[in-house]
Each structure stands twice: as structure tokens, then as C-alpha cells.
């Protein structure tokens, strides 16, 4: 079936699965998982170098092949997040940023006020802003109006693996904006990713579900298939739900067994 590409700030991507680089058991496993996931965009954090500077995570990511997506994880104010994006750009990581402004340490839920402010500033400064937000349709529209290249509602808290806790809100988010909607955070297993895509989401971003699985490489492949299957099912147009049965075989032409 013909499908369009995922477009973010004018850049086109065929893969709709964005993966991270955190919490892998080894760098080699991470590299294999990235390969198995078939992703084109890979998230990284921006942190202090250890001195003396040793091995870099980029020794294990082909930067010509993958688009790097620096995040602002750990930032609790718009100011910190904005400065982190500037650092990332100056480091040569490009203009695409996964914007997080965290509002609460225990839940890692976003501070949407700070998020909106940072989105406005960064979009104006030429960044392609991908904000991690709540599953709130009103905020999604505000972020779009502020210049976000997409909106990334959480399915559940970061790293929780609880799946898509409010599919109805995600559905309304999809109806509320014209920019791509990417579920970011909360996915635990393949069916969660498939559900997000079946709802009509444009992509899924995940880290822990793959990196934390017992076999990260196998889970990466499962996620790739789930995202593709979910997307196909969405495009194919599912049947409506009905309470009672509808026979799949014709009722006419049944042999007569009466004696």
C-alpha cells in the first residue's frame, strides 16, 4: 500500500519508529538494536564530558546514516532547555530537538507552561522543535501554534511501560492538530506501539521498552514490525465494532440435513 513519509521540519523519513541510546547493556547491543529497529532518527542526551575524555557514544552511531535527535531531558525550566538546545546545535547535532521541560521528578510529567515558552523561542530561532507533552489536545494545539514541528504526547509516564493509557485523548489530539503526532514515552511492548499507530499516530518514540528488554535486539525488531503493522492497519481502515456476531460464510446454499 502506498504511504507517505513522516515529515519533520521539511525533512522526510520512511521509518516511523524513533529510538534512544540510554540504558543499553552494552554499546554493541545498542548498535544492533538500532539496526533491528530500522530507525532513521536516534535520540541522545547532552551531558558533561568526563575528563579526560574517553569513548563517545557516537563511536557507535553512524552519524551519516542516522539523524541525531538531542533531547533536553533533565531540564526543569524553559531557560535550561533552551540553553541545552543551543549547546546541541553548537556541538554539531543539528536543528532537530526533542524538547522536554520536566515539571515533576517522580512522574517526569512535562511542565507545559515552560514547554510552550521554550517551543516559541526555539521555533523562532530556527530549531525543528519536537515537544514531549501531555495527552492534552488543547496544549497540543497551542504547541502547534507556537511553531512545533510535531507534538509528542506521552502514552504513559517515561520508562513506565504502561502503554497507551488514554487512547481517546490521543485520538482527540490527532483531530486537533495538523502537524505529526508522535507518541513519546510509556510504550512497554509491541502491542502498545501497534495501538498508537492504529489510532493514526504518525510515529512512536521509545527507549526503555527496547533497551530494558531481556533481548533488546529482538524487542527492537518486534517494535519495528509493530509500528509497521499498526500503520498498515490504520491505513487499511479497520471494520467497525459490533456487539453481536455477523456470519463470515453465506447463509444461503446450506445443505438440507433434515430427515
Amino acid at each position, binding site marked *: 500500500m502506498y504511504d507517505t513519509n513522516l515529515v519533520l521540519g521539511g525533512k522526510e523519513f520512511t521509518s516511523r519508529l524513533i529510538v534512544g541510546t540510554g540504558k543499553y547493556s552494552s554499546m554493541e547491543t545498542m548498535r544492533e538494536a538500532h539496526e533491528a529497529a530500522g530507525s532513521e532518527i536516534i535520540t541522545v542526551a547532552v551531558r558533561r564530558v568526563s575528563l579526560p*575524555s574517553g569513548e563517545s557514544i557516537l563511536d557507535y552511531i553512524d552519524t551519516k546514516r542516522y539523524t541525531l535527535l538531542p533531547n533536553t531531558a533533565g531540564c526543569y525550566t524553559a531557560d535550561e532547555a533552551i540553553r541545552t538546545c543551543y549547546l546541541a546545535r553548537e556541538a554539531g547535532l543539528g536543528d532537530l530537538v526533542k524538547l522536554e521541560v520536566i515539571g515533576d521528578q517522580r512522574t517526569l510529567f512535562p511542565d507545559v507552561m515552560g514547554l510552550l515558552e521554550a517551543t516559541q523561542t526555539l521555533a523562532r530561532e530556527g530549531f525543528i522543535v519536537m515537544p514531549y507533552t501531555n495527552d492534552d489536545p488543547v496544549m497540543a494545539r497551542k504547541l502547534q501554534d507556537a511553531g512545533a514541528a510535531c507534538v509528542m504526547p506521552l502514552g504513559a509516564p517515561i520508562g513506565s511501560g504502561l502503554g497507551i493509557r488514554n487512547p481517546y485523548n490521543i485520538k482527540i489530539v490527532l483531530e486537533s492538530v495538523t502537524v505529526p503526532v508522535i507518541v513519546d514515552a510509556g510504550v512497554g511492548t509491541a502491542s502498545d506501539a501497534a495501538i498508537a499507530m492504529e489510532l493514526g499516530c504518525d510515529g512512536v518514540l521509545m527507549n526503555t521498552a527496547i533497551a530494558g528488554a531481556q533481548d533488546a535486539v529482538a524487542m527492537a525488531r518486534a517494535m519495528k514490525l509493530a509500528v509497521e503493522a499498526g500503520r498498515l492497519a490504520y491505513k487499511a481502515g479497520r471494520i467497525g465494532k459490533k456487539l453481536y456476531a455477523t456470519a463470515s460464510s453465506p447463509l444461503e446454499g446450506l445443505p438440507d440435513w433434515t430427515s
Partner: protein
Amino acid sequence: MKISVNGKPMEVEAGLSVEGLLTLLNVKREFTAVAVNRDVIRRADYAAVRLSDGDKVEIVRPMGGG
């Protein structure tokens, strides 16, 4: 003079440039960025920006994250 680099105190000679500090610390330049007192320094300005006593320097690069 005393500066701090990534949160650690360090004694360096007065007037050291950002470029000089990176050389001194033997930091790989690729995919690395520097901020001094919260201001991000452009790569092209590394040689021109001189550090002052009490400056807080942050040197960052990509790390694993999600």
C-alpha cells in the same frame, strides 16, 4: 586564576582562552560544545574568548538517553 570545569575546581593561568582550555584538557572537538557562565560559545570564538577568574565552564557532548 581559579575556574570550574564541569563542576570541578581547576587552577589555570590567567587569560587562558577556551581553545587553550580544550587543548589543555585534551578534549575531542567533534560533537563537543562549550558554555561559559551559562553562555554557549560558538566554535569560531574558542580562540577569542578568554576566561576570567571564577568562570564556570561546561563542556558537553552527546551521551546515552531517550
